[in-house]
């Protein structure tokens, strides 16, 4: 079973890597944000698999935290700051 988890982690790594290419290529900010989202989701998946491979239940908490904060990046990026005159 460990080997299957490892193989799947490799698959997710590949997916992260492809997402990375999109982050680097852009062209727009939106594309980069979207790809960052994919990197985050792949990261969550990998942490879940590692949790099984290395028997580290705490990695589940890490995955949870990443998942909870996944929307913060997009919100921080698209949020419009008020000006002082608003």
């Amino acid at each position, binding site marked *: *079973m460990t080997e*299957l*988890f490892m193989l*799947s982690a490799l*698959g*997710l790594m*590949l*997916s*992260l890597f*492809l*997402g990375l*290419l*999109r982050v680097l290529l852009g062209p*727009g*900010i*939106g*594309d980069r*944000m*979207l*790809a960052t*989202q*994919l990197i985050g*989701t*792949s990261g*969550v*998946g990998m942490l*879940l*698999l590692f*949790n*099984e491979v290395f028997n580290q*239940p705490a990695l*589940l*908490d890490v*995955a*949870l935290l990443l*998942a*909870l904060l*996944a*929307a913060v*990046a*997009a*919100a921080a*990026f*698209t949020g419009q700051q008020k000006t002082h005159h608003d």
Partner: protein
Amino acid sequence: MINILSSILILAGVFFYLAGSIGLLRLPDLYSRLHALTKADNLGLGLLIAGVALQSQDLLIMLKLLLVWLSVLAASATSAHLIARQARRQETGS
């Protein structure tokens, strides 16, 4: 039996992940990428989580896994919305 089922689920999940990222790379414009990606990675993560959950007997862990999935679902829907809105705003030039 459980092992086989969870293997199938996890591999399917990885397949959807890969499909999503290839879509992200190959599709021509932001909106189509947006649609492809949000569907693929939610489904991928969902299947993966189902596979991992089958391996654990602990109810607390299963609940946590469910929470992970739900929050990724919500987050990805929200960010897709925010990104699309931002892109539209830039196109209309306001």
